[in-house]
C-alpha cells in the first residue's frame, strides 16, 4: 500500500476512539448501516485521555494524512474526568501543529457519544473530505519509500 501520490489517492486517517463513547458510537453506526468513507481507521483506546500526543506525531511521521481523537463529551467520561485532560492536551496540540505548518484540519478532536452514531458518520465524512482536499501529508512524513531504492543519501 505504498502507492500514495497517484490520482486515485486516498488519505490515511487514523481515529483514536475511546472504548466507551466513540467506539460504541462507531459500532452503532455499523448497526444502523450508516455509510462513510473507508479511509478512516479506528484505533480503540480505553479513554481519550490515553492518547499520548506523541502517538499523533508518530502517525504523521509514518505518513498518516489526518488524525482524529474522539471521546466522550466532557462530563460524560466513563472515567469521570479523563476527557478534561484530553481537551487541554489537544487544544494545545492542534495549535502547536499549526505553528509548525500543519493544517489544523489534519488533526482534529471531537466529542462523540455512544448514541451519536450519526455524528460519528458525519464527522468521518467531513474530516475525510477536508483531508482529501488538502492532499497528502508531506510535511512530517518520513521518506521511507523514496529513499529505499538506490541505497543511501
Amino acid at each position, binding site marked *: 500500500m505504498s502507492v500514495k501520490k497517484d490520482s486515485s489517492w486516498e488519505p*490515511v486517517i487514523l481515529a483514536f476512539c475511546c472504548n466507551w463513547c466513540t467506539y460504541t458510537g*462507531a*459500532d452503532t453506526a455499523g448497526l444502523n448501516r450508516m*455509510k462513510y468513507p*473507508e479511509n478512516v*481507521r479506528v*484505533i480503540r483506546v*480505553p479513554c481519550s485521555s490515553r492518547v499520548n500526543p506523541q502517538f499523533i506525531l508518530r502517525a504523521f511521521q509514518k*505518513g498518516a494524512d489526518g488524525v482524529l481523537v474522539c471521546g466522550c463529551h466532557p462530563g460524560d467520561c466513563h472515567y469521570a474526568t479523563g476527557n478534561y485532560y484530553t481537551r487541554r492536551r489537544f487544544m494545545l496540540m492542534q495549535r502547536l501543529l499549526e505553528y509548525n505548518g500543519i493544517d489544523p484540519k489534519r488533526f482534529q478532536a471531537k466529542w462523540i457519544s455512544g448514541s451519536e452514531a450519526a455524528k460519528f458518520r458525519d464527522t468521518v465524512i467531513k474530516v475525510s473530505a477536508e483531508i482529501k482536499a488538502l492532499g497528502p501529508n508531506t510535511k512530517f512524513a518520513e521518506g521511507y519509500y523514496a529513499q529505499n531504492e538506490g541505497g543511501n543519501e
Partner: protein
Amino acid sequence: MARIGVFICHCGTNIASVVDVEKVAKAAMQMPDVVFATDYKYMCSEPGQAMIKEAIIEQKLDRIVIASCSPRMHELTFRKMLKGTTINPYMLEIANIREQCAWVHTDREKATAKAIGLVQMAVAKVAKNKPLSAGTIPITKKALVIGGGIAGIQAALDIADCGYDVTIVEKEPSIGGHMVMLDKTFPTMDCSACISTPKMVEANAHPNITLKTSCEVEKVSGYVGNFEVTIKEKAKYVNHDLCTGCGLCQTKCPTKVTSEFDQGMSKRSAIYIPFAQAVPSKPVIDANACLKLKDGKCGICEKVCPIGAINYQDEERFTTEQFGAIIVAIGYELVNWEEMYPEYGGGKYEDVITGLQFERLVNASGPTEGHILRPSNGKEPKDVVIIKCVGSRDPKKGKSYCSRACCMASAKHAHQILDKIPNSRVYVFYMDVRTPGKGYEEFYDNTRKDGAQYIRGRVSKIYKEGSKLIVKGEDSLLAKPVTVEADLVILATAMEPASGAYELAGKLGIAVDGDNWITEAHPKLRPVETQTNGIYLCGTCQGPKDIPDTVAQASAAAVKVAALFSHDEMETSPMVSSVDPDKCSGCGFCVDLCPYKAISLVEYAGRDNGRKVTKTVAKVNEGLCQGCGCCNAICRTGCIDLKGFTNEQILKEVDALCL
C-alpha cells in the same frame, strides 16, 4: 518471534458479502509474524471456536487475531475460549471488520483493503501483547451504608440478612430519614411511620448491623473489598452507653428551639430525642442551643440525669474501619423555595408551607396532633391551594428535572384535606400529572372524584389580603387568569441532592452530574453501581424517586454487595496501569491526575548513578485502577504503562495503519 494466527469471520454474509475474506486471509499470511491465517463462516460458533483451538495446537500459535464483529461483542467470548488452551486469554486482539467495515461500506475492493488494514493493525498490536492474569484481592465482608433513611435501612437489613456485617452511618441523631416524617404513603395510604419504624427498630436490633448516628464519613481510601473509612462521630454530650433514654433531661431542659423533625412547626429542647420513635431513642445535646455549652450556665440536664450520662466535655471522635463495600444512600433535601420564588412570599407568609410541613401537620404525632390547622392562626383552612413543580421542571428559577414523587404526594395531600376537613376545597395547580406507578392513576382519579380541582398552569403570585392568601395564576387550558383566595397553600417543592453530596462524592471518588445527583455506572444496566468498583448507590441520592423505587433500589444494591461478599476474594482486571520503578522519577504528576486515587508515591530501593538509594516512585494500586490510561499519556518518561494498551502496542498499531 511471535507466532500469530489470524482468523477471519464471514459472520454468515454479514462480513463476507462486502469484504473478500479470502483475500484478507491471504494478505494476513504476508504480515510479520503471522504463521497461519484462515477464514470461516462463524468464528464465534462452536465449530469456529474448535477450529481456532485446533489451529493453536497444530500451528503452535502463541497469540491470535480474530477479524470479526466488534470486540465489544465477542471479545469476552473468545477470551473465555482461550482459557481452555495453551494461550493466555489476553493474547488476543480483535479486528472489527463488521461494525466498522462491512456494515458501513459498500465498495468491495475498498472495504477489503480496509479490512486488511484493520487486521494488520491487530496483528501489529497482538505481537506486543503480554500474557496477563487477573490478580485477586481479599474482600473484607463488611459493608458501610452511608445514610440511614429508608434506602439505607433497607439495604442494610438485606445485607445483614445475608449474614454480613453492616454499619450505617447517619449524620442525624436518629435514623429514619424523610420517610418517618411522612404521614401516609401513596397510593395505599398506609401509615408511613407504622411501616418504617419497625424497620428502624429491626435495624437497631439486628445482630449484624451497627448504627452510627451523629456520624459522618470523613475520609475514604482503599478500593473494592478493602476500603478504609474514617468516620467522624460528632460530639453528642450524652454517653449513649449509659443513657437509658428515660427522657427526663428533655423535659427539664429550659431551652427550646425549632424542631427540625417537625420542619420548624414545633419546638424541641436543647437536649433532645428528635422524635418519639427515634432510633436510637437517646438524646443528644444541640451545642448551638445548649446554655451550658454556649455560656457555661444551666447544667440542669446533668443534674437531673439519674445515671450521669451527660458529658459536656464530649468531643468529636474519629475511628477508622475496614469495609468491603460502600452503599451511598444519602437521600435528598428540599430546595430552598424561599429564595427561588420570592413571588410566593419567599417565606414570609406562615400559611404557605411545603408538602413536608404539611406531612407533619397532618400527622397524629405532629405539632397539631394530626389536625390540619393554619399555622398563622390555628384555624382549620377551608380553601387550600396545592402548587406543584415548585422548583422542578423550571430551569429558569429552579431545577430542570422532574422530582417524580410530588404529583402523587400532592394528590395524597388533596385527598387528606378533603377527607379530614368537611366542605373544604382543594385547588391543585399543575403542569402535568404524572402517575406512572401501580395504583397511582387510580389514586389520582379518586382524588379528583373526591373534589380536588386540578388547574393546569403555574401560579404567578401569592399575596396576603387580610387573613386570606390570594393565589394568582393562569388556567392555561382555558387561557384565562385564575385567582383563588386560599387559607393554606402547600408547595410541592423539588427535591435536590442532600447537602454535602458533592463533597462526599469527592471523598469516595465517584461522579456526580450537573445537579450533584450521584451518577450510576450505567443508566440502564448498572443502575445501582457507581463508577468506582465496590461503591453502590440507592434511593434519592441518585435522583428523585418515590419510596417503592427507593426500597427496590436499596435491595438491588444490597444484592450487589451480597454478591461481592459471596466470594472470599475477587478477580481484578489485569488491564491496569503499572509503573516501572527504575524509570520513574517520582514527579507525582500521575498521582494528582488519577480519578480513582489509585496512584501513590512510595519508597523504593533503587539505583542512582550506580549507587543504591531509596527513591520515591509512583505505584499503582491495582485494585483501584480502572484502566483509563490517563496517567500514561501524562508520564513523560513513559514509565507508567497500561497493560493491554501499552505505549508500544499503540505505537505499533499506528505504524501498521500507516503502512
